[in-house]
C-alpha cells in the first residue's frame, strides 16, 4: 500500500512541471481570451465595459469576417488535400523504388520547411513580382506572354499564389513523416503482392495506404493548425489582406481588429471563434477518418 502511494506521489511530482507549464501558458491565456471577448476594450488602459455576447452578435453579421472565413477554409482545404497527395506520392516513390540518392532528395525536400516563413514570403514576393519576377520572366522567355499575370495583384488569383507558396513549404515536412512510417512496412508484403500479380499502383493503394493511415490521421490535425498559423504570417508579409480583403484570413483579420481598429474585445471574440473552429474541425476530421487499426 505504501509503495503504491509513494509511486503515485512520484508520478504526480514528475508530471507537475508539465502540468504547471500547460496551465500557466496555455489554459489560463485561453480562458482569458474567452473572458476578454465579453468586453469592449481598447487594449491598453483599464477601461473595460462588459458587453455580454454583443461582440458575437456583431461578428455573425460582419461581412469582412465571413469573407475571411471563406478564404481560410479555402486555404485549409486546398493546402491539405494537395500537400497530402503530393507528399504521400513522393514518399511512396522514395521508399519503394530504392532510388540512388534517397537521402539527398529527403534533404532537398525538407529544406523549405526549415526556412523561416518570413524568408519564404520574401522569396515568393520576388518570384511573383510583376516586372522583374522569376515567373513572369520565364513565361516571357518561353514566349508564353499571354500567361503572364499580376500574381499578387489580380484579385482572382492572389489567393492561389499564396496557396502555392504554402504547399511548397509544407510538402517536405509531411513527406519525411510518411517516409518514416512507410519504411516500417516489411518488404515481404510487397513481394507477396507482386507474386500475386498486383502492379505498383495497386500495391500502393492496398498495402501502403491502409498501413500508414493512422499516421495520415495525425498529420491531418497538424495540417489544420499549421495552415491557420502560417497563412496568417504569410498574409501579413505578402499581402496584408490583399487587394480589398481577397486574402484576408482569420488571424490577420483578428490582428487588424484588435490592434489597428482598437477593438481588442472584438478581436478576442474572433479568437474564440478561431479556437472553436479548429477544435471542432480537428475533431470532425478525426472521427470521419477513423478505421480499424491494421496490425502487421
Amino acid at each position: 500500500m505504501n509503495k503504491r502511494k509513494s509511486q503515485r506521489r512520484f508520478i504526480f511530482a514528475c508530471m507537475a512541471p508539465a502540468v504547471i507549464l500547460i496551465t500557466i501558458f496555455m489554459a489560463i491565456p485561453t480562458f482569458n481570451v474567452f473572458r476578454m471577448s465579453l468586453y469592449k476594450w481598447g487594449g491598453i488602459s483599464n477601461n473595460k465595459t462588459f458587453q455580454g455576447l454583443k461582440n458575437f452578435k456583431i461578428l455573425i453579421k460582419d461581412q469582412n469576417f465571413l469573407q475571411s472565413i471563406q478564404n481560410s477554409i479555402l486555404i485549409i482545404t486546398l493546402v491539405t488535400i494537395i500537400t497530402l497527395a503530393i507528399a504521400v506520392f513522393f514518399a511512396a516513390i522514395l521508399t519503394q523504388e530504392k532510388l540512388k540518392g534517397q537521402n539527398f532528395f529527403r534533404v532537398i525536400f525538407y529544406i523549405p520547411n526549415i526556412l523561416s516563413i518570413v524568408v519564404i514570403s520574401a522569396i515568393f514576393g520576388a518570384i511573383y513580382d510583376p516586372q522583374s519576377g522569376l515567373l513572369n520572366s520565364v513565361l516571357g522567355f518561353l514566349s508564353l506572354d499571354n500567361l503572364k499575370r499580376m500574381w499578387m495583384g489580380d484579385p482572382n488569383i492572389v489567393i492561389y499564389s499564396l496557396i502555392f507558396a504554402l504547399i511548397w513549404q509544407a510538402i517536405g515536412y509531411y513527406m519525411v513523416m510518411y517516409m518514416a512510417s512507410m519504411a516500417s512496412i516489411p518488404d515481404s508484403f510487397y513481394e507477396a503482392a507482386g507474386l500475386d500479380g498486383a502492379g505498383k499502383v495497386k500495391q500502393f493503394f492496398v498495402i501502403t495506404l491502409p498501413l500508414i493511415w493512422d499516421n495520415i490521421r495525425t498529420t491531418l490535425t497538424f495540417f489544420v493548425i499549421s495552415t491557420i498559423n502560417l497563412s496568417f504570417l504569410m498574409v501579413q508579409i505578402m499581402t496584408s489582406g490583399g487587394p480589398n480583403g481577397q486574402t484576408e484570413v482569420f488571424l490577420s483579420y483578428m490582428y487588424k481588429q484588435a490592434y489597428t481598429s482598437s477593438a481588442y474585445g472584438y478581436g478576442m471574440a474572433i479568437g474564440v471563434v478561431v479556437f472553436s473552429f479548429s477544435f471542432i474541425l480537428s475533431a470532425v476530421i478525426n472521427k470521419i477518418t477513423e478505421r480499424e487499426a491494421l496490425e502487421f
Partner: protein
Amino acid sequence: MKKLLCMSLVALMAATTLAGCGSKKGESSNATEGEKRVLKVAAFEGGNGGDIWKNLEKAFEEENKDVDVQLQLSSKLDEELRPQMLNGEYPDVVYYNMGQKSGFTETMIKEEALLDISDVFTGDLKDKLAEGFAENAITQPYGDGKTYLAPIFYSPTGLWYDASKFEDGKVPATWDEMWAYGDKLKAEGKALFTYPQSGYFDGTLFAMLYQAGGSDYYKKALEYDTNTWNSKEGQLVIDTVAKLSKYTWDATVANANSDGGFKKNQQAVIDGDVAFMPNGNWVVGEMSESTPENFKWGFMPLPAYEKGGDRYAYTFFEQVWAPKEGKNHDDAKAFIKFLYSDKAVDLMLANKVQNKDGQMVAAPVVQPIKGIVNKLDGDMKLFYSIYETEGVLPALGNWATTDTIEGLDFKKAVYGAIDSLVDESMTADAWKAQLNDTFAKCKAALK
C-alpha cells in the same frame, strides 16, 4: 536515500518552471532620482532616425539642469510600450504617429488616455506656430477645443514627378490637362499615375474634398456628414478618382500590398515608367539609395478642377503626446514646448541619418512655425515653398474621432477600395455605396 534525492530533484525541476514568472514589481516609480526629476521620453525610431531625439535630450538637459531625461528609442515602440503600460509603467512623453498598423496612438485617443496639453499652446507659442496647426481634428481629437497632441515634423504632400520630363515647366494644371497627358503616355506604353499604397490616398482625398467643396464642405465631410458623397461635390471626387484609376499603372496593386513593395511603385516614377504619384517629401530620403545622381524631383499640388481654380496640397504632420498616467506632467509639457524653441528647430533642421553604407546623410525635419521656409535651402526650400505659390492652399485635418466600431476597417473601406477600382473588381457606384455605409457607421459612433 536515492528516493529522497529523486524527489528533491523533481521538486527543483518543478520550481524552475516558475523561474520566468517574475514581474518587475520591485521598481519604485518615483518621479525623482536623487536630486533630479526624471522625465521619461519614448520615441519611435523611424525614417528620421534616432539621433535627433538624443540631441534633443542633451539640449533639454542643458537648459534644465534639474531634469534627467530617460530616452527610450525603438523601432517597435508600440510592442514595448503596450506591456509596460499594462504593468502600470507609463512614459511621460511619447513620439508615435497615428496611421500606424498597430493603431497605438488611435487606441490611446479612443481610450481617452492622453494628457490635456492645451496650456502649452498659449501665448508666444500660439503665435509662433504656423496657421492651422494648433487647431485641427488631429491635435484636438475630441472637437472640444482642447489640444491633446502636439504637431511636429510637417511635410506638404502632393504629386511628385520627374522634373526633367517637364523642362518647359508645363506640368498639367487642371484635371483635363492630366487626362490628355495620360492618353499621350498610354500611347507610349507608360502610365500616368501610381501610388505607393492605397493608404497614401488619404492626403489626396482630403485635398480633393477641399478643392471640390471648399472649407465648409470639407469640415462637414470630416465629421461624416451624410450628404458628403451624395452631393455633386462628392460625385465629382468619386468620378475623378474612378477616372484616375483607369490611368493607374497596372503593377501598382500587386506591389502596394506586399511588405516593402510600395517602394517599387515609387521607383517606377524614378525609372520613368510612371509620371505622377502622391507622396510627402520623406520620399526623397527614402528612395535616395536607388535614385540616380542627376535625378531632379518635381512637386506640385493637385490639379485644379477647372482653369484658374484653387489647388490644394494636404499637409501631413507627425505627433507627440503625453499619457495621462505619466508621473511627470510639468516637465512633459516643458519638453513639448521646448520642441518649438529656436534651438530645437535648428537641431531638427541639421538632422542626419545613417544610410546603408554607414555614411551620415542630411535628413532635415521641419517644425511648423512661421517663417521656417527662410531657414531652408535647395530642394527643401522648393518643396516647402509650395504654399507661397499663387493659388495653392494648405489642407489640414483628419477624420473625426469615433468610438471603437467593431467589424469596421475604415482604411480598407475608404482607401482599400481604390485598389479594387484599379483592378476593376469594383465599380465607382459600389465604392460610393460603401463610403455612404462607412460614413453612416462612423457618424453614429462620433465621440
